[in-house]
């Protein structure tokens, strides 16, 4: 696999990933604002709790449950999470590309970066 191929596939992944994430965030935000009924943004006081962020399954469940007050923000959060995984996904693709090239050094370097990213998530 040539460098140009790796670069092109990375570019593709990054751009389409960010556009999908943006579309979901936009949908969630518009939906949220359309039904907000003049709410004041009162919860901009810092609470220190992860907002609307839970494990993937419950986030999706919450987003589609009409009885849950926070469900539109769960949808926005899904979009945010998709945005946040864009960098690790691009690094993983790079690792894969370098492996396909037989470049052991850069496969290893990419995997180290990926490991730091994953580790930072579970700290």
């Amino acid at each position, binding site marked *: 696999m040539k*460098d*140009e191929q*790796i*670069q*092109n596939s*990375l*570019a*593709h992944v*990054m*751009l389409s*990933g*960010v556009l999908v*994430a*943006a579309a979901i*965030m*936009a949908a*969630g*935000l518009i939906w*949220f*604002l359309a039904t*907000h009924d*003049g*709410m*004041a*943004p009162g*919860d*901009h*006081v*810092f*609470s*220190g709790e*992860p*907002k*609307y*962020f839970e494990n993937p399954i419950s986030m999706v469940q919450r987003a589609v449950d009409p009885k849950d007050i926070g469900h539109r*923000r*769960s949808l*926005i*959060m899904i*979009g*945010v999470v998709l*945005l*946040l995984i*864009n*960098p*690790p996904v*691009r*690094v993983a693709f*790079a690792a894969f590309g370098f492996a396909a090239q037989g470049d052991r*050094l*850069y496969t290893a*370097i*990419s995997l*180290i*970066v990926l490991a*730091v*990213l994953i580790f*930072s*998530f579970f*700290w």
Partner: protein
Amino acid sequence: MDELVFDILVAVCSLLAGVIGALIGLGGGVIITPLLVLAFGVDIRYAMGAALCSVIATSSGAAAAYLRDGISNMRIGLFLCVATTIGAVCGALLAVVLDPAVLSIIFGVALLATVLLSLRKKKDLAGPDASDPLAVKLRLPGTMPAANGPTPYTVYHVVPGFCVMWVAGLLSGLLGIGSGAFKVVAMDQIMRIPFKVTTATSNFMIGVTAAASVGVYLKRGYLDPSLVAPVALGVLAGAFLGAKLLAVAPVKLLRVIFLTAVSVIAVQMIARGLHINF
């Protein structure tokens, strides 16, 4: 203020930030966090979370174009990302234990440093001499597209560059910024990589660096989706718009206005941090 009005204002301001960022190469977290804190009264931690997400958004959009054009150097980027991501994790953990007032002060100081770095005379230090042997071993030197075909360039001082990248990563995690200015300085002043490659590669790196802080920010509740969404969407739209305006925009004038404004904001951020302590 009504939520809808708030979000529209935030989105419009973020759009402007995105346009400026695309035109000047400096923006994202650096403008957005102070904007949200000073103009909108948002808690600095929510502001940092939103700014961090906007850095990831612009990185994904802008860097895609540079990669496709063959200007960024993936190997330099990924190698230096080892330093920046480790630094970012350290920075994010540090941010959590620091008082928000202290963060505000450090932010202001980092802003001033960024302005000073941007004002330095731009001498392209890329030279014809042989690269640092370590750089050759790591296969860092590459070629960049130019008028007369692919032009090779050399890379120097790998270890110092790596160390400065760690600091750039620390600032990114600590303050929720891309620290593109610091990365660019490390690459073009220390490692003597040509400007175009530096800017393009930095764009790629800021997203990966920012992602290293994300886990910590998420778990400590720095990310509010209803704030992140208008900011990220605004900045993304602004970045695309700014790239289109590049040919016709008065970039030099914008730089002067912008750097002046950022300096004023930096002082305000420092003052704010000191105020709270009284």
